[in-house]
């Protein structure tokens, strides 16, 4: 996977980093550059977080800026709101996806709405980092794909990186953003390495990017499922399909322009995510594509998603997570014969 390929004036050196390492670097750089930035949550201080994303930060920046809180998620988000009202820029960690739910009221009723409820006078530049999704053999309550709870809430931005370099760029931009950002970290990608330049000046927080160009169909994915989608695109190539792969990065707002431009060229689209299908993010993408690209579509937009079940136990999760085969099956179902007929080709 490549970093966002945009030219920058001062090109930083190449780095080989995991996503966890890149996130750590982003936090350290933000803490260095802006004294208003604070990092806190459960076990993020001395331990460095259960995924080690905050490793070494408390020692380097001191307990006043990087600290452990009591164990209470509403407390973490609620106090972050008060701190942001008072001019600070908190970056807080929820230990796992499902353990952010106690903070739901603070997130939806206050974090998302205070700007609106104060006629734009109160700004809450807060980042909530949430390790999310499955694929790591986690037990129950540790593997939720909770993105649509947040994307459905106006006032929040929701982003999710799929690679180390992008994790760095997105987190830096999320911290600089005047809006609250739900920052979803696909935990099954934490330890994948990438050699890239870490830079956050060239890309923007709300743009999707084309990760792999193609001409026959568009695969749209994000977060943990992006890597699988790229592998599926590779496999599809061997079967004769040229698949373009789009990494959404920003789930809210949704970058319809980038996605629609691709689909208008290819005429076919599959959305891939590991969250449940029903009312999942793919439903929104499919709806917007059918509203805006109907006359370009050669086939209905398909969704490859998790089943509509509670996230399964580790010994069964491979059946739930969309794999390469399911993506290839969906590609096969994109009515190739019909269109060949319509185009006057084939039988």
């Amino acid at each position: 996977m490549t970093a966002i390929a945009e030219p920058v004036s001062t090109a930083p050196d190449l780095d080989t980093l995991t996503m966890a390492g890149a996130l750590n670097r982003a936090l350290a750089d933000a803490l260095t550059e802006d004294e208003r930035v604070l990092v806190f949550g459960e076990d993020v201080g001395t331990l460095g977080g259960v995924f080690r994303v905050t490793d070494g930060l408390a020692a380097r920046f001191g307990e006043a800026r990087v600290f452990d809180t009591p164990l209470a998620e509403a407390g973490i988000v609620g106090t972050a709101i008060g701190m942001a009202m008072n001019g600070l820029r908190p970056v807080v960690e929820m230990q796992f996806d499902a353990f952010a739910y106690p903070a739901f009221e603070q997130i939806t009723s206050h974090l998302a709405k205070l700007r609106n409820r104060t006629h734009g006078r109160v700004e809450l530049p807060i980042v909530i980092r949430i390790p999310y999704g499955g694929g790591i053999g986690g037990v129950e309550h540790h593997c939720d794909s909770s993105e649509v709870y947040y994307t459905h809430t106006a006032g929040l931005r929701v982003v999710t990186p799929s690679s180390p370099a992008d994790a760095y760029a997105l987190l830096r931009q999320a911290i600089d953003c005047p809006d609250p950002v739900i920052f979803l970290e696909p935990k099954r990608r934490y330890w994948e390495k990438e050699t890239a330049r870490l830079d956050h000046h060239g890309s923007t927080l709300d743009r999707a990017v084309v990760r792999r160009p193609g001409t026959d169909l568009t695969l749209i994915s994000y977060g943990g499922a992006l890597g699988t989608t790229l592998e599926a695109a590779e496999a599809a190539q061997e079967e004769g399909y040229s698949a373009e792969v789009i990494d959404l990065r920003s789930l809210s707002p949704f970058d319809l322009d980038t996605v629609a431009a691709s689909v208008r060229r290819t005429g076919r689209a599959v959305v891939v995510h590991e969250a449940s299908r029903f009312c999942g993010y793919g439903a929104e993408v499919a709806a917007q594509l059918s509203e805006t690209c109907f006359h370009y579509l050669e086939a209905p937009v398909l969704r490859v998603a998790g089943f509509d079940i509670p996230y399964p136990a580790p010994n069964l999760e491979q059946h739930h997570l969309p794999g390469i085969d399911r993506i290839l099956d969906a590609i096969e179902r994109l009515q190739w014969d019909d269109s060949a007929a319509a185009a006057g080709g084939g039988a």
Partner: protein
Amino acid sequence: MTTTERAAASHLLPSAEPLGLIAADGGPVPDPALELPDGEVLLRLYQGMVAGRRFDTQATALTKQGRLAVYPSARGQEAAEIGGILALRPQDWLFPTYRDSMAVVARGVDPVEVLTLLRGDWHCGYDPYHANVAPQCTPLATNTLHAVGFAHAARIKGEDSVSLVLLGDGATSEGDTHEALNFAAVWQAPVVFLVQNNGYAISVPLAKQTAAPSLAHKGIGYGMPSVLVDGNDAAAVHAVVEQAVARAAAGEGPTLIEAVTYRVESHTNADDATRYRDRAEVEQWLARDPIARLKQYLTDRGLLDDARQQQIDARAEAEAATLRERMNVDTELDPAELFRHVYAEPTAALRQQAAELTAELTTGDQA
């Protein structure tokens, strides 16, 4: 502290009886544990309560005239509302609830701005940074955490500012209150929790809310000093809040205060309190009226005469008249505003939706 010292930390416990300075009959409380505010402060408290009650009756009247969508009255709670606010310094912050309009007005926010939300607008009406008042908070107890975070940030920034958060007896059952008390105590944040125990959470009486000996007792579990005070005694509320603010400002951490008072009116104008409580109970509390008792005290000591009383009444009346007049003006609503403050910059989707609404309204006009 060792475990034994912690367990014996009875100095954190509230008094058995609510602290007071002025009794229900307007006489002084014998051997008070608090210092009586000076005459000047007592007069300001009195004037603030009279103005507060007049504001409150005016707001209730405005609901009947259809000028307010809803209004939760704080009648009977003036001592807690005003006593707490007047103990704040200019640099301190207030985190109020829906019931505390009169406190927000007493803090210096324009009453018309304060009533903006209840009038049917979507936003809180005032600039929180103007008089250091957070938006009035409807989701119960959530403001407690904002106050703690705000206070902690002040400390991190090295600023001398204390946060006073208001909450009701019902709100003490919410998880956020407990998280806030705990965070505040662990961080030693400069914050003061003022619980207005007005006996009811809508229809639910205190006995169904808690089995604790008092709400103030909850402080000890978090390692926080707690104070039980007569919430209808403005002098006493002022004294305990002032003390707590001074402690917080001196870096000595948070305080939990329970002010025992009574909600004289229904929960809001839309509620009917006769469904869940007797008139006799209300009468009992009317006899403990916070304004009458301070008036008696001040009059007995020659601090308040008829002329002064007339002045105070006239001022409250004039303020109410201005409020009535200003609230009787229809406001211009701009539907495009709906999209303006959702994000720092409207997203492409919001710009599109704003355009759709504008188009809809334009065609509507033509039809």
